[in-house]
């Protein structure tokens, strides 16, 4: 079994904005990479491995990650890899590399500019290309199917969903990087029209542009950090079947399994950052992870307040770590999701000394 203790020693993120119109990905990333490395006390040449996460279809061009490499300063040549996934999975790949003993530190980054295309439409082509994608069901409609199933089965009310939105966006008021930082009360939210029933605008995430970076370290490399190291005590990810018809959309078995493997239940959880782009998904995830009422969920405001695609999952890990480093608790759970209706999920358990 993996035996090396790996710590998060640096985290930086851009502000999430609806549309970053003037800077390209390289220009967005450069200050973020520099800041994460500064916190870690590491220079480029000290970094053992670099892994990034992004998606060509968001950028509207093939090999979008290639030019982003310009932001890294990859000279002399670096050990580097890329996943066409949320940066949380890039972090997983980097963590695996550290476990092989071939590197002692890692730079992980992710970027996504959803504003360049029509995001709900772009996400449609994630679906089965033969039977589902040709029907063009958009991401919000699929989430609404899941929400309907969840409300009917559990007796959860639309008001409960509005409360999730209200709490998340109020929490975001204290997060300068978040995009939606105010909210009317649940009563007022409930009076707004449906977007796709039973979802209203507040049940859905904003469309965001952004980027983020995390530095991992183990062994002596941890000692250089300006940030209080936050240890990864467990990390696991699981995927479910793709066809919506074969899944029970009201639960998240992949999150539950990943949570068990990562050891969520081995101790008290002080706070959790859950990548729940839709309000009902937060409730599904809380249940899958066994998070009780005492857990502070999404103190950053979560994906309902800022949801840069390919980045928001990595940001959950960074936000949870930064909060622990800042003294907000001893033990946290961070979660990332990918695919329609929570198809793929990653869970990470973090602790500070």
């Amino acid at each position, binding site marked *: 079994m993996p035996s090396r203790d790996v710590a998060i020693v640096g985290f930086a993120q851009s502000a999430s904005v609806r549309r*970053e*119109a*003037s*800077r*390209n990905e*390289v*220009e967005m990333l*450069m200050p973020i*990479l520099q800041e994460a490395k500064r916190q870690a006390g590491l220079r*480029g040449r000290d970094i053992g491995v670099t892994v990034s996460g992004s998606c060509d*279809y968001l950028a*509207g*061009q093939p090999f979008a990650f290639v*030019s982003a*490499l*310009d*932001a*890294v*300063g*990859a*000279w002399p040549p670096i050990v580097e890899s890329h996943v066409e996934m949320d940066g949380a999975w890039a972090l997983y790949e980097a963590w695996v590399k550290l476990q092989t003993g071939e590197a002692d530190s890692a730079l992980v980054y992710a970027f996504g*500019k959803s*504003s*360049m*295309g*029509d995001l709900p*439409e*772009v996400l449609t*082509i994630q679906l089965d*290309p*033969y039977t589902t*994608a*040709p029907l063009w069901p958009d991401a919000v409609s699929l989430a609404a199917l899941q929400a309907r199933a969840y409300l009917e089965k559990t007796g959860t009310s639309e008001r409960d969903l509005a409360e999730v939105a209200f709490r998340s966006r109020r929490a975001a008021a204290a997060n300068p990087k978040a995009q939606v930082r105010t909210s009317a009360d649940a009563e007022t939210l409930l009076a707004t029209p449906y977007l796709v029933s039973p979802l209203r605008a507040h049940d859905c995430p904003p469309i965001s542009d952004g980027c983020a970076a995390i530095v991992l370290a183990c062994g002596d490399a941890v000692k250089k950090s300006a940030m209080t190291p936050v240890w990864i005590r467990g990390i696991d990810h699981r995927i479910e079947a793709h066809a919506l018809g074969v899944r029970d959309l009201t639960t998240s078995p992949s999150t539950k399994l990943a949570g068990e493997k990562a050891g969520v239940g081995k101790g008290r959880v002080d706070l959790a950052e859950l990548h729940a782009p839709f309000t009902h998904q937060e409730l599904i995830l809380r249940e899958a992870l066994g998070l009780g009422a005492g857990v502070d969920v999404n103190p950053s405001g979560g994906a309902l307040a800022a949801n840069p695609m390919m980045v928001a999952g990595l940001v959950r890990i960074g936000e949870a770590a930064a909060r622990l480093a800042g003294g907000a608790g001893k033990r946290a759970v961070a979660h990332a999701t990918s695919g329609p209706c929570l198809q793929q999920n990653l869970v990470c358990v973090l602790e500070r000394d």
Partner: protein
Amino acid sequence: MSEITNIVTPIRLDYTYTAGHATQRFLLGMAEGRILGQRCPECAKVYVPPRGACPKCGVPTTDEVEVTGKGTVTTFCIVRIPSDVLSVPPPFTCAHVLLDGADLPFFALIQECDFDAVRMGMRVEAVWAPKAELAATFESIRYFRPIDEPDAPYETYKEHL
């Protein structure tokens, strides 16, 4: 019943691309008939077109540098099949042109000479679109053509191959 081997699903997605600060500067230069690059504050190399960052040093390049349209062919290829993006009929020659004062070759079409007269070390210059047609696009430089200067010695550009 006949076998179904393919179904066609047309996909149309519209994107609004972001040029970024550095590329914007370059394109605005193109509209004025100027070639603008940027110098890396760390390694002092000049990038034309500028990329906003020095890929080697990973730092922003902000110091603007103007270069002339003259340069040296470092290497080239003769394209003998029709191009999707150029209206020039094959065969035609595309070259890496190292502009005087720049440190990165510029990919360019060579015209006004036989396609097989292009050689490594040949001196060339940019041919601009007529003033009225200058715009914020790479196409403001129509192509490069040979100039009456002796070939650059191999040693002067071999570092750029």
